[in-house]
């Protein structure tokens, strides 16, 4: 008898616990659906804007230019020979640029050496002429060039002047250079150059005299 009452009592407790469990689950399920509703409501009013920022400093700048060139260099009294060299430029504004150049040329025998048939004035090593210089350029006439109907290219006629050093016949000579050039931009980053320069320096091989050494070159450059 007593045992049966105990079983009943326990079953009641169990039933109560079950009800409690079921009701609590129902309540929590309710809470979950409510929560979902809130989330849905929030999404409805959320603005669909994609926030993008731009890094202006990451824009590719093309102010530097490197060039290779070749042409003719006329050394006063020593003939006209092929010159080969390289230049690097920095464009400060749309009109002004700085340029550094280095080039090398050979020189031939003077008329005196050829006619007299005597001993050469200079050794082979001394005949080599190298120069370097730093110059300031000014884009005097920027413009466009047209090819047929459908092609237009940006160009510039520039004037340039600077100072540097010429090494010839084992001596360094202070050199002033000036001239003009034509830049033809095939694309934004590739340009074709034609350049005419005069290099003025003093030479003391045949008594002290100031020499004018003309140079005509063509080349191409890459902007980066």
């Amino acid at each position: 008898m007593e045992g049966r009452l105990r079983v009943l009592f326990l079953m009641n407790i169990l039933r109560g616990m079950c009800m409690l469990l079921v009701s609590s689950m129902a309540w929590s399920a309710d809470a979950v659906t409510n929560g979902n509703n809130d989330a849905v409501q929030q999404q409805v009013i959320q603005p669909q804007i994609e926030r993008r920022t731009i890094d202006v400093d990451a824009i590719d700048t093309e102010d530097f230019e490197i060039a290779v060139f070749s042409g003719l260099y006329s050394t006063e009294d020593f003939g006209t020979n092929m010159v080969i060299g390289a230049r690097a430029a920095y464009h400060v504004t749309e009109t002004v640029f700085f340029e550094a150049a280095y080039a090398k040329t050979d020189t031939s025998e003077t008329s005196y050496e050829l006619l007299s048939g005597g001993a050469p004035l200079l050794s082979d090593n001394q005949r080599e002429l190298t120069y370097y210089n730093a110059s300031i350029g000014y884009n005097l006439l920027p413009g466009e060039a047209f090819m047929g109907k459908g092609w237009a290219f940006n160009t510039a006629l520039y004037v340039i002047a600077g100072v540097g050093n010429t090494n010839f016949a084992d001596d360094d000579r202070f050199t002033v250079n000036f001239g003009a050039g034509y830049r033809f931009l095939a694309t934004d980053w590739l340009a074709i150059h034609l350049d005419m320069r005069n290099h003025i320096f003093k030479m003391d091989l045949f008594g002290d005299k100031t020499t004018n050494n003309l140079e005509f070159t063509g080349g191409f450059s890459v902007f980066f």
Partner: protein
Amino acid sequence: MRVGLLVILLLMAALANADEDVYPEVKVADPYIELHVGPGTGYPIFYVVDRGDFVEVIKRKTDWFKVRTAKGKTGWVSRTQMEKTLTPSGEVTAFSDAGLGDFSQRRWEIGLVGGSFNGAPVMTAYGAYALSANLSAEVSASQVTGDFSSSELVNFNLLLQPFSKWRYSPFFTLGAGQITSRPSVTLIQVRDSQDLVAHAGVGIKVYLTRRFIFRAEYKNYVGFTSNDDNKEFEEWKAGFAFFF
């Protein structure tokens, strides 16, 4: 020659690929912006982009920006007009360039100066590192091309700049180095000489624009020759430098 061609082709391929990149976009906030055919004031305007339209910024040359419109037109826009556009998040597009503030906080400086060394032309390349706002260490290499000899100088000096924040900033230098003189080949029986030199100088640096400065200076050198008497040299120089 063939290798050169290959390099050029590879370079072109690399640059062609770069074109497929995603470019930053800005929104026109002024009534319109003008597209020029080239990066310069004189190039004609061929197209305008209205307020509210977006343009892609492809590249920059000096103060000009190459942009592409939604309709595929490409042209060059001046910096002044670009500064009146908005970024996609609505902020004013700003381009950071070096200014006077950066000049007083610079770390490195590289320059080329030229002038007269005891009457002969001199050219100098130098590099400087700022130890503090007022003190920097410099190394320079000079070439003097005189009528009778040419010399090379290598110098190390300290530079004191008491008013580093001024646009016109005076400085004082103190240093030492070595001078190597080679007499002209037309003069015979004179041998090369190598001497130590010490020098003191005064000068001015002027901040120009962006990363550029103008520099002018006077230096007085004392050469310690192997003979008993010391030589004195005077040097005047001016030139340009840039800092970063």
